């Protein structure tokens, strides 16, 4: 995986090849970040696919207004970036169905390069995408874009708490097994929703593993806040097992290191035919990298634990800080200048 600028994407990856772009419309302003980045660098892409999905977001009226506003902005920008574009309705919490839909679009487009803006995909869609890329089902070059928000919602202001309506514990690949759980490992990526981790750990708890703490360049506060919010859950998890957990701080650009760290967990699990569970609640690029490596290297033992929110809060994030771009190596490595 290589970190790129949007200019690199133009010059080294797209290179005039047939390109398909996916991105999700959302109430979050950052859903437009990567597309605006592409527009600013005069990138031209053959086909755009605007993914739309239904989730419960409150307050509803204001959400509708924002969605409409973002859809209008998308149309304006899309007309400058895409030669053509279409809308595709997806299930916000689909895994296999989501993969089938994406696969069908890629096959129909005969694209050589697929750009995926994962910013406003749900985490379960992101996991499904990583599993799809890892499966090698599509022989294309993948580029992933992600927009960092200016801020996450301040949960101390929370006046309308959000609950979790279900918890999915499932394999990333089609037929992973939970054999030899006594030696199972966990890859935990804490985020800004500490309840998500608490709820997940109340269902299934790894006895050892890797804790990946995200560091966003120039935003030490985001990491501090995440650490503060997850402090109690982490303390209960590792206080008796500090030797069994490894804590690593990684930046959003360090996908190679994330890969190495996850690989290390995989090796420990593989020796005992044990599963590796992904508790991916932090920034989506890290969740995507970790899931990609797990699904690619250890499809027989890679799992995820995903609490599904009852609803989202309109003020979940604000603004767009910046967009980051990555080239994902596929089974047929792309040549880079």
């Amino acid at each position, binding site marked *: 995986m290589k970190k790129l600028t949007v200019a690199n994407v133009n010059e080294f990856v797209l290179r005039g090849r047939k390109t398909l772009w996916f991105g999700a419309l959302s109430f979050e302003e950052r859903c437009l970040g990567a597309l605006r980045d592409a527009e600013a660098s005069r990138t031209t892409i053959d086909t755009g696919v605007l993914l739309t999905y239904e989730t419960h977001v409150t*307050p*509803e*009226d*204001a959400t509708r207004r924002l969605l409409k506003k973002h859809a209008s902005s998308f149309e304006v920008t899309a007309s400058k970036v895409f030669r053509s574009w279409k809308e595709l309705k997806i*299930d916000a*919490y689909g895994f*296999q169905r989501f993969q089938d839909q994406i696969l069908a679009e890629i096959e129909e487009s005969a694209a050589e390069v697929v750009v995926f803006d994962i910013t406003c995909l749900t985490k379960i869609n992101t996991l499904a995408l990583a599993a799809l890329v890892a499966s090698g089902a599509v022989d294309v070059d993948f580029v992933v874009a992600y927009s960092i928000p*200016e*801020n996450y919602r*301040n949960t101390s202001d929370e*006046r*309308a*708490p*959000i*609950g979790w*309506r*279900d*918890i*999915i*514990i*499932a*394999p990333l690949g*089609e*037929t*992973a*097994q*939970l*054999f030899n*759980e*006594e030696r*199972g490992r966990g890859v935990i990526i804490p985020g800004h929703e500490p*309840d998500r981790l*608490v*709820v997940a*750990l*109340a*269902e*299934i*708890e790894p006895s050892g593993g890797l804790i990946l*703490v995200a*560091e966003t360049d*120039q*935003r*030490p506060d985001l*990491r*501090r806040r995440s650490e*503060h919010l997850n402090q*109690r859950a982490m*303390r*209960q998890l590792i*206080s*008796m097992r500090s*030797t069994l957990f490894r804590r690593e701080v990684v930046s959003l650009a360090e996908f190679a290191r994330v890969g190495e760290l996850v690989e290390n967990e995989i090796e420990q699990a593989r020796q005992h035919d044990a599963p590796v569970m992904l508790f991916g609640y932090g920034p989506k690029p890290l969740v995507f990298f970790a899931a990609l490596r797990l699904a690619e290297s250890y499809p027989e033992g890679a*799992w995820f634990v995903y*609490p599904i929110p*009852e609803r989202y809060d*309109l*003020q979940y994030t*604000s*603004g767009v800080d910046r967009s980051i771009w990555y080239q994902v190596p596929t089974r047929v490595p792309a040549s880079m200048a």
Partner: protein
Amino acid sequence: MASGVPAVAVPWTDGEKIPDRNVRDIFRRPPDLPQAFYRSSLIIGSRGVGKTTLLRYLKSTHDGVGVHISLAAEFATLGRQTVYGPLAVDIPSALEPLVMGKSTSLIATALAIRLIRKGVRGNDDLFQACLPQSLSVPTTSDEEGLLRLQRQIAKTDLEAFDGVVDSHGLPDYVSSLGRAAESSHGPLLLLLDRADMVPPVSLVPVIDLLDQSQQFTALIAMRPGHASDVIANSGEGAVAGDHYQIVHLGIRPRTEVWRDFVKSAVGAQLGHLSLETIPEEVHAMVLQLSRESLRNALELYARYLQGDGEPALRLKEAIEDMRDNQLAAAQKTLQRHHPDFRRFINESKKESLNGKAGLDGPLIISFSATPSRSLFDHSNVLDRFVDSALRGGALCMPEGQKWLPGLRPSELEVPPLFMWQEGDLPWHASASPSKLHITRAKDALSVSGGPTKPPSLFIAYRMDFESSKAFRSHLEQEMQQNPLLHQVVVKDGRVLPGENWAPVIRERIRSARVVVGDVTGARPEVVFELGFAYGLKRVVIPVVESKAAFQDVPKWLRMTQLAHYGDRSGLAGVATAVATYLHDRDLARQSHKPDAFPPRAVWLRSLPWSEQAHAQFISACGQDGMRPETYGPEDDPEIVIEKACSSSLLVATIDGTEADSLVHYICGAIVARPSAGSGPRFNRKIVLVVEADGSEAEQLIASSLIRCADIVKVVKPSGVYAEVRAHCRVYRDWSRSRGSG
């Protein structure tokens, strides 16, 4: 740790984690467990009571063929395909038979794989009846063929499984496995674990296996409350207590025999010598708070015995962590059934304490009236709440009471861990429970009880204008006559002589939910206070003296719906707006109020006399990675407010024109939240640039704003560069700092 105390091993708090070789050594037989399972059974127990360890022990000691299967693992592809998990209560009815069909195929194949490894093969025709027509039982008797079939089942669309469950073929197929096992190895014991981690409806075919008439014994383990109705109404007539027995582990957690069992089980992992060093009151507290959970007891004992610092402090921290995490998990998974479970618990506790320092026994919530089951009652919602609470350990069955599928308990106990507070003493052994009666179902499901603080309203008015003063008193009178508003506390900016008025007023605004401001003439003080309220994310209602005054209000203020107080209907409109915002929290959250974004530096209004300073601002920001943005009267006021209010550095020109009002509003919002980011403080800064000198300049700025000397600097254009550079350096150091490490 005190010297001489043996080192404590890291405990295996989950049964799944215990290595095979250690299971027999670690297992302790729970009180009330049957000596042997001669009948198929549903084993009920809350999380951590030891269900998995029991099943693993039974497998290791079974004289015959024992198969231990995690249903969570075997049915996981259902979750991947349907994205329904154990808490799913809203699976569409059309999907239910498909899920049941697929779970039939999955469990049949899982058993076939496990048993073929032991050389046991069942009847293929009966196996085929458990599969969709599109899939076939492999003809060869090797494991590889079955594993291929398992992968095919995982991939096959749900629609293909239509009709599979209707044949009810699973018990017959497993019976054929049982007969084959019996003839070659001995009786077949099926140990089906983690039934509480799969969608309830997927359990329907599994429950059929409990019918005692079959040629095997099946034990299914799960938490109470899970799939209650699904199991109770399960189609093929396997009836709890009749066709199979119910074993509920840990139903007498306060008996001496259970406590001895827990100590023995904990000692088997941590070492009995370690436990002997623990004072009796610590034992009493740990066992009381753990209730029936061996897992919790292990965790608390282990943290008491191991780590840095005083054992008592470690235990306190361990209890707090456990309580808060479990309460958070309960609150968040019960959210859709109960608006605020944590508050329900706190209020129940407060009510039962009734002035006492601490509870001296368990707290029982009692639903004394059986709710009628009409269309409009809350019974179904209450049932779901109770089932979910039992499953998640948010509530538990009272001592001595067993949970059965379909049971509608009239009493539930609040876990002692949730009731714990620092300083509590262990209960006396003979403590009798406190009972809290809830007579109506809906009372359990709403946030009630306890006096709530009346909301307050802040009125920012022009103190030196009679009409504005009259507005303030008329609005209060109007509200007193309104049944929705008569309890609202009305506050304003008047203070007693000698009081430091700025912090007093800010505190009043901070405590208000709605702020009404008379913006007639856009007086700096009033606008600043409204901005302060906006920064605190309070509802702001701007009003003017009359409709005619609308046109004199600056453009940026006219973006908001303005009310007027010039006549009775206008005043009533203001009161109605206040009532609406106070009672509709969603409406109050409509507008987006951004938090500070540390790298953002905003220059508001570049004027001819400030051009050079503006250029210096751009240059200075760029040196340290801050992002300078400039806004002026030509920009959309909504965007200007959003960006400027989220800046960590605001530089704004003040020239005594109408445009100064927007600066005051934005400054108010920044002063309300004077730091950016979280963690080590990064203070925001406002630089007000004036052309005039000294007191002349200060007259242009609201007194409230000038008083914020820690955040506000008033400078001439020549002073801008130094202020900006200083802030940028602070930003640079802050942005390069790292987390807590």
